[in-house]
């Protein structure tokens, strides 16, 4: 199987290692424009390295686009043109300004890297809480990512807490309520350290009438690493509080049961950075049952655009 990776930063390297760890017989090509990095990689990694894709005319079985979001669309179009069979684009798929695409019939084999869908707790919720039973949902993402003003594109419109972290939560909300049309009622956006959105609060409603509230903060000094949480209230009076590691179920604020990742005891054949990342690549190379589609991602972008504007 021939695999092409655009960009060999942290995510490119992570996906390469997972795919190679799962199947060492894959044939990798990597586009990395940085000459020095390419030279080092060539000597150390078993893959073909190119400065750009101009010499690549044969189709690839899988293409991963893990560059900064400003060039996601351009590279996706080139991959479609080459006839690549499956294309994976890292979230947030071009950022919030990317809300409309032409020729959507060609987009069926394109998937977006919303990895939290693969979290074992989210998998449990998806299997145990029916979307049409959800009355309200609150999503939150906290991190201490930014402690000084970021440089380059990370301080521009393709970055910000909404694009980089909030997009995960908006995707999860859409996925869990099974409704991609969200209306923003009000939002508050604050810049604390960067020139873009550092703290975002919003209330929304879905086409099917689910009440939604969101809170994203990537300048929170009280957390060591990124943490997300989702709270769901159902029409029949249950409440589910979900994070990376557990689901607590309540009825009228009375605790009923806890399901933890320990109960779920998910295993993967090769582990790096969480079972979610490995499962995402397994899904990509197999039947793509869980991955976010282009349509899902465009709707996330539309919602971000409405929140920020």
């Amino acid at each position: 199987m021939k695999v092409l990776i655009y960009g060999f930063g942290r995510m490119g390297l992570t996906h390469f290692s997972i795919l190679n760890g799962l199947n060492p017989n894959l044939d990798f090509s990597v586009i990395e424009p940085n000459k020095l990095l390419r030279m080092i990689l060539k000597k150390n990694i078993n893959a073909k390295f190119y400065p750009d894709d101009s010499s690549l005319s044969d189709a690839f079985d899988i293409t991963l686009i893990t560059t900064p979001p400003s060039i996601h669309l351009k590279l996706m179009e080139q991959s479609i043109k080459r006839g690549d069979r499956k294309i994976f684009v890292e979230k947030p798929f071009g950022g919030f300004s990317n809300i409309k695409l032409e020729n959507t019939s060609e987009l069926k084999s394109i998937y977006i890297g919303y990895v939290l869908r693969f979290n074992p707790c989210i998998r449990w919720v998806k299997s145990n809480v029916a979307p049409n039973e959800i009355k309200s949902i609150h999503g939150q993402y906290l991190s201490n990512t930014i402690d000084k003003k970021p440089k380059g594109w990370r301080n521009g419109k393709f970055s910000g807490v909404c694009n980089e972290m909030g997009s995960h939560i908006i995707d999860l909300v859409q996925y869990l309520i099974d409704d991609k049309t969200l209306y923003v009622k009000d939002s508050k956006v604050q810049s604390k350290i960067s020139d873009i959105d550092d703290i975002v609060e919003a209330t929304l409603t879905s086409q099917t009438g689910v009440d939604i509230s969101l809170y994203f903060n990537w300048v929170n000094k009280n957390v060591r690493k990124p943490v997300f949480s989702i709270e769901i209230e159902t029409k029949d009076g249950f409440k589910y509080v979900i994070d990376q590691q557990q689901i607590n179920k309540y009825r009228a604020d009375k605790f009923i049961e806890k399901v933890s990742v320990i109960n779920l005891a998910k295993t993967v054949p090769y582990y790096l950075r969480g079972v979610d990342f490995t499962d995402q690549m397994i899904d990509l190379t197999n039947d793509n049952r869980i991955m976010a589609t282009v349509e899902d991602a465009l709707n996330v972008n539309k919602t971000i655009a409405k929140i920020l504007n």
Partner: protein
Amino acid sequence: MKIILGDNQFFGVNHFDLQKGEKTKSKFDTTNKIQSFINKALEIGMDGFMINSNEKGYELISETDFDSSKEIHYSIPYPHKYASMINENGMLSLLSFLIKNTSFLKNIIGGVKLVATQNLTSITPLALNLEVPNNLKKGSYIYMQNIITDLLMGMGRGDLLIEFIKNVYKLGYKPGIITLNPIMFDELLKKTNNKDILKELVVCFNINKEGFNVFPSLKNVEDLVRSKPNYKLMGMSIFASGAANIPSSIDYIKQLNLDYVVFGSSRIENVKSNLKLFRE
């Protein structure tokens, strides 16, 4: 079986409950508090302690003389520091940081070699020089953290881990490898011709009765333990990050006959009662 105090509680790591992790971190907000807790644990009979090379861990080892009869298990690197560096300034920033921050005199050969050949095998002495304090008692263990171990194995560069092991020996220390893919690492060692490197090697991996974060499966890892490989085995996450029933977890671990176990707690009474159950 030797019993080692873990360090997760000092740095807010709890794989089961993130909020609990943050709370315990605030209990250990100075190196003095960490040092005092370690000393108490050693006094009640723990065989040694594990500590990461983050800012506090490095300072603690640099400035403290611990009971010389106890073992120090020092892990490198502090992954979050490097992950943020790569996120903000790209992959090359990592190499440039290593070259700029290592001791010029000690690493001139390694540095020049890295620049001239671009071969990452020359990076190991630089990383060791940067991350290991001079005061670390000779004969102590130096571990490679799992995020790097597992990344290198996935990349197909397990040979860099073998280089790491050799370089640790050269410095007068004993090598350790932390991995969440112990079967893959065992296969790597089986392919290695130099069996001498296995003598003091400790391989640290997740093992618990619940099979929580035990990869690729609990059965595979139990089979590895029972195969009695030619290196030492250390079990971590033995209480499934605090979610398990402790006495039954300890009974389970005891029947595996590991060489080492590592566990942490923010309460010295818990360390004491767990130790008692291990020694019974």
